[in-house]
């Protein structure tokens, strides 16, 4: 979780520049190639054409982005932006100060504020952009001078960096103007990041090559980074043990043993920032009855499932979020905990006259770690408290479309990318956020609005927890766990994966 090389203090730059210099002089092992077996891949040459986590990571290493969230310190760090500030008088005005003297791959053009402004514009207006949501809070971005960009938001937005840092790729305005979007992306994919884009074969692999002159390029990091698409878990494990790849993403819990027993590779867990939950929409009968929602939360044996099916590779969630996520407070979380209590749940169901109520739990298949197995095991638990429960396994696009339209009363789902919980909770629990759960509470709404307008971190965390407590009281969802994501790492490299699923070449050291 240490992000040694993309740290942006002046000394670090000086050090890495030194290291880079050393790398050029000394004949380091010429080809240090690290291959990564990934489940997902970029689907477009356009750096704004994807919104998958891994893609953000890849593009940020090629084009460069303003900054990133550092999990080790729990704070934001700059990359292309040296520093940033919020206007003391007007919380809508943010200023980003770019690092000076950054030279682009091949042609050496310097990064300027015009490029940043252009990138904001392109993300919003490119027909193929799949990242418009990241700039939706931005009313305008303008260049103050060559190295300063002023961003004005529509409403005061405390979690702005969550959107603007490693999700906004900074691309060259000159290349776009000269060659047009298609050729700029395909023929001139040049940027200010530590890696050059060498090859994209969509559906097969992405190859990055270290730019030795880049300030973030270090001697230890691989010269070549190959992201290979390997969707089958068995395949990733096999390839890792064969040394076909050195890093294998997302090992399901039941295959963990194959790696930990092998001599050539280690199993490295990382907590994820994906919240798994059971959603119960109060819009539908019988879920409008809070007693039923609460009883269901008491009925699920989360520890039992984590042990038997997830093989201990998950962290139980007592509060809506867990350790490491922004605003987590262990004391507040302990107060929100819901115990596993079949007798109580059964009694609640009986008293409310809900015995024998038909409920159908919908689950995706193969989208989350052991999702079908997990939900299969919940059915007898729901039956045990007197509900007539069945499991539905619709095809994902169908399920997701219905969830998004608010047509599924009871489902198992995950919400990924929750570093700062603000966007996710507004989306699921604020009135008008989205129809997914169909929950509406004036109190929760006002707390979530207040949280977004509060810039003092401590005060904001407190309000976030108040909102959580209110949600847990109403229980439109049972928060289950966060999966520990397992990576298989060859003994030939040292790497600590990050919870966001982005893989930084600068974090990999070839032994």
């Amino acid at each position, binding site marked *: 979780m240490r992000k040694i090389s993309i740290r942006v203090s002046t000394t670090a730059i000086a050090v890495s520049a030194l290291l880079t210099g050393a790398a050029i002089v000394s004949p380091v092992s010429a080809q240090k190639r690290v291959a990564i077996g990934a489940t997902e891949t970029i689907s477009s040459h356009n750096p704004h054409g994807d919104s998958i986590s891994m893609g953000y990571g890849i593009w940020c290493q090629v084009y460069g982005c303003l900054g990133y969230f550092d999990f080790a310190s729990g704070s934001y760090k700059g990359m292309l932006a040296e520093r940033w500030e919020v206007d003391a008088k007007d919380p809508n005005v943010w200023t980003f100060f770019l690092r000076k003297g950054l030279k682009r791959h091949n042609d050496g053009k310097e990064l300027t504020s015009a490029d940043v402004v252009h990138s904001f514009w392109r993300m919003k207006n490119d027909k193929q952009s799949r990242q418009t*949501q990241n700039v939706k809070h931005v009313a305008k971005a303008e260049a103050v001078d060559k190295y300063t960009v002023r961003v004005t938001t529509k409403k005061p937005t405390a979690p702005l960096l969550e959107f603007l840092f490693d999700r906004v790729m900074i691309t060259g305005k000159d290349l776009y103007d000269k060659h047009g979007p298609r050729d700029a992306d395909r023929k001139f994919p040049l940027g200010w990041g530590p890696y050059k884009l060498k090859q994209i074969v969509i559906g*097969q692999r992405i190859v990055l090559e270290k730019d030795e002159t880049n300030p973030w390029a270090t001697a230890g990091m691989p010269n070549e980074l190959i992201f290979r*698409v390997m969707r089958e878990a*068995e395949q990733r494990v096999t390839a890792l043990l064969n040394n076909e790849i050195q890093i294998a993403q997302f090992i399901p819990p039941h295959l963990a043993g194959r790696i930990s027993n092998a001599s050539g590779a280690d199993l490295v867990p990382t907590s994820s920032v994906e919240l798994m939950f059971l959603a119960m929409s109060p819009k539908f009968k019988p879920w409008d009855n809070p007693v039923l929602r609460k009883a269901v939360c008491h009925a699920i044996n989360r520890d039992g499932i984590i042990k038997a099916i997830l093989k201990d590779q998950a962290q139980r969630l007592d509060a809506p979020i867990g350790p490491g996520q922004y605003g987590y407070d262990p004391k507040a979380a302990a107060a929100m905990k819901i115990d596993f209590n079949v007798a109580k749940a059964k009694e609640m169901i009986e008293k409310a006259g809900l015995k024998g109520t038909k409920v159908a739990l919908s689950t995706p298949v193969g989208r989350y770690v052991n999702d079908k197995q997990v939900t299969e095991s919940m059915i007898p638990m729901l039956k045990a408290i007197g509900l007539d429960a069945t499991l539905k396994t619709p095809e994902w696009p169908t399920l997701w*479309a219905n969830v998004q339209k608010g047509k599924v009363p009871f489902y198992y789902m995950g919400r990924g990318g929750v570093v700062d919980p603000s966007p*996710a909770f507004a989306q699921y629990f604020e009135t008008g956020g989205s129809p997914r759960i169909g929950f509406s509470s004036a109190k929760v709404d006002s707390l979530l609005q207040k949280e977004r307008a509060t810039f003092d971190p401590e005060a904001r965390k407190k309000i976030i927890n108040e909102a959580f407590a209110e949600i847990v009281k109403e229980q439109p969802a049972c928060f289950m766990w966060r999966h520990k994501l397992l990576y298989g790492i060859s003994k030939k490299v040292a790497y600590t994966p990050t919870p966001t699923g982005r893989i930084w070449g600068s974090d990999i050291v070839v032994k």
Partner: protein
Amino acid sequence: MLQYIARRIFGTIPVIILISLLVFMLVQLAPGDPADLLLSDEATPEDIAAARERWGLNQSVYVQYWKFLTAALQGDLGTSFRYADPVLLMIGDRLPATIELAFFAIIIAIVFGIPLGVWAGARPNSWVDNVGSFFGFFGISMPSFWFGIMLILVVSGFLNLLPSAGRSTYGIADDPITGFYILDSLLYWNWKAVLDGLSFIILPAIALGTNMLGILMRVTRSSVLEVMHEDLVRTARAKGLSERKVLWRHAFRNALIPIITVVGLELGTLLSGSIIVETVFSWPGSGSLLIEAINSRDYPLITGTVLAYTLMFVIINLTIDIVYAAIDPRIRFEK
């Protein structure tokens, strides 16, 4: 004959248009929305509405279809929602991988399936028949997704002989000419790349071809078995031809009709089967493309890929009918 072929080709045009209409309606009516699926989890309803507008999804299906059809007739199948590339280009990129895979799968099926079937059919109930049939049943009852994973585990994993995923190693091949990796490498005389390509294609080709092998073996066996008792074989035998000549020159030749029919049918199944095998082996072909397109409800890409498949099926069927006529002059196409 030429007239027949011309008429057949002309006759496929309405079929293709009909299918394009069906696919278009089907994908639009099926639940699921590309804007929901392709935008990030954080997209707001406004983002989704904007994407729908951009992709022309807010127009009526008929208007959309008309636009699609007129563009398609000018050689433009639209732009993929997910990959932001012209559909025609994407299919051109991916289809050769699938054809290459299918080609090797068929070779495997034919090279093993037909001789096994002929021998088994010539000597029913002998040990050749029993062993051959066992393999045949094995092939028929083996789901490709299961067999594929077994191959990865055993051949790449346990024996460590062949790579487990993908189509090529980075940095060996030259720029593509035809898109057929092995053929391209041959054209460059790049033997290292040829071997590399072969090492990647063997496992998926076996996984894909095994089912066809089994079916082919069984069908060949039964056709040969039947023909062996017809007069022409008895006549040939009576003429004193060696058993081997009787078998291959007469019996096999006359058993060809059902065999070719099945090969033709199975080619279709094979192309569909490639969807699963390509997913298991992360083979970058049009089958895995189609499944990704379906999973993201990428309407133009689904329609385009299905049409490409349709065209191949139609060509296969036509070829088979011509082959029928060539090997069995008794077939008359006009009443």
